[in-house]
């Protein structure tokens, strides 16, 4: 048995991950619905997680996977706080479109 990446190629994982990451960026830019934007950010983080695991396999090293745990914790924490903010905005202005957040400018 050898490294599974010999069959797939680490480049492919990189391309997949980069594409996924870019889709995440695209989502953040494209959508105005805050929830979807959050989701896009999650996609970005997951793209990175995927790459971590791929690299972990590439290096035959556990640290990459361990880091994914931290990354998940971060994602969870962010989502919690983000949604809390979102809810409080929704309570105040009844909308979650980020286009409505234009009071602060200039």
């Amino acid at each position, binding site marked *: 048995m050898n490294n599974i990446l010999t069959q797939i190629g680490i480049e492919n994982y990189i391309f997949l991950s980069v594409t996924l990451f870019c889709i995440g960026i695209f989502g953040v*830019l494209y959508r105005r619905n805050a929830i979807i934007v959050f989701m896009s950010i999650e996609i970005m983080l997951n793209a990175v997680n995927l790459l971590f695991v791929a690299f972990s396999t590439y290096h035959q090293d556990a640290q990459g996977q361990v880091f994914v745990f931290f990354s998940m914790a971060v994602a969870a924490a962010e989502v919690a706080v983000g949604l809390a903010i979102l809810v409080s905005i929704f309570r105040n202005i009844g909308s979650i479109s*980020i286009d409505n*957040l234009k*009071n*602060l*400018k*200039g």
Partner: protein
Amino acid sequence: MAMDTNLALVLVLAPFLGFLINVFFGKNLGKSLSGIIGTLSVVVSFVVTICFFLQINQTKQPIQIDLFDWIQISNFKVNFGFLLDQLSLLWLLFVTGIGSLIHLYSISYMHDDEKMHSFFAYLNLFIFFMITLVVGNNLLVMFIGWEGVGLCSYLLIGFWYKNQDFNDAAKKAFIMNRVGDLGLLIGIFILGSMFSTLDFATLKTAIAGATNLDTFWLSIAALALFIGACGKSAQIPLYTWLPDAMAGPTPVSALIHAATMVTAGIFMVTRLNFIFDLTPYVQNIIAIIGAVTALVAATIGLLQNDIKKVLAYSTVSQLGLMFLALGLGAYEVAVFHVITHAFFKACLFLGSGSVIHGLHGEQDMRKMGGLKKAMPITFWTMLIASLAISGVPLFSGFFSKDEILMVAFHHNIALWVIASVASIMTAFYMFRLMFLTFFNDFRGTEEQKHHLHESPALITFPLIVLAILATVGGVISLPGNSWLNGYLTPLFTKVEAEHHLGTTEYMLMAIAVVGGLIGIAIAYAKYIKQNLVPNEDAEITGFSKVLYNKYYVDEIYDALFVNTTNGLSKFFRDYVETGISSLVFGLGKVTNELSFQGKKLQNGSVGLYLFAFVLGMCAIVSYLFLAQ
């Protein structure tokens, strides 16, 4: 030597002390006392001068007095010191002498003026500066006096400061003088850098000992010095201030603008004769300007109606004659004329002052006439002075003027013709003045007529003294036997041979006398026989109008210099200043505008922000990894 130093200090500082007393305590002293103190202080100087004069007449040794270091320049040092030699003592004699007389005169003349003490203060200050000018042992100490007398002239012309016209005249005098002063300074600079000294004595030896003189720069220096003299001595092109200066009280005109200050230019040229002697071109220029000034001023004088203006133009004209003599290298002749001129012109001015005093300030000759009876002493003294200035034989002016004409004749016929014409005109307008003022009937108001009276003794006494001097002053330099020439000889490098009184000379004398008499005769014909009175201002036409308006020189100067400067000033103030200012502000405005536009970019949209973020990231990454 210490004695000399102390005496010299007394000589210089006595008037200054008078000035200080009058400035600080004048008001409390009372008018008479302040006048007396003022006069006394000058008399003291006069007495000291006489002492020195007697001393030097015996020893023939100039007295050098160094007081202290004054200005330090890299290649030379300027001491503050005095030089009492033949020239300066001669000058001092008539400065302090006539000064004393005029002070005396002023006690009475200014008695009605509430600011009499300051008048005396200024007069004393003037004498102080004049003495400084004369006794300074180097160019810069002379320059102190030079500027100082200008200042006093300014103060005294503008003595009646409530009248802005008088103030304008004062300002004009000061500024035109300053134009000359700049010339003088430039001359000083050049001399200083050429010879590393400004001391007269050292300068003289340095020039005498110099092997290869740079005549070009020396000429420039001489020319610059002459410009200075033009300013002070009212020569073309800087003469226009002098007639305006008549705005001051009459004693001032007599003292400053006839007898003493205006001769400073002649003094300076004479003092530096060793320089001018080496620069023939400049000498020619001086001669020509002198002659032209004499003629131009005389022509203007022909038609003036203000009694003092006539005298003022006459002064300019006479000064022109003196410069003519200087330009021709006949320094002693010029000095001679300075002295005689001081006598008779002071007398004339004081006389006219007496007339004006009698008429309570009237200066227009058209409103005078027939004053002979009311003011006999004034009349007779003025008549004597007029005869002197017109060159009637045996009066002092005859000798001095004649010598100038003779010198001119020997050098250049054209100059002689000009000078002769000028002196004929002089005779004419002086007697025009006399006839209009003293003969025929009184043309003024009844009230004035009622108050006509001879002036008090304090006024007439100086007149009489000056008239006597004007008569006999000629003895100091009789043709053929000149005490003055002998006295002044040590000063000059080139000694001109004495003119022998040959036929030519007697011919010239005769022509001059006849010319003078013709002038008087014309005036007599016009103003006594025909009893003409000059026209009102509006009725003057033709060339007379040009003359009456002084060739419009003032207007031309105004247009050329004053208005240009003022226009430039306005232009600078309104456009250039705001322009530069708005350029600076403009930078601020541009950044502010950028800020304003930038605020639009910061529009609050997260989308835009992220977009910028991503673009920035792309730019950086692609620059770093793709562009290499």
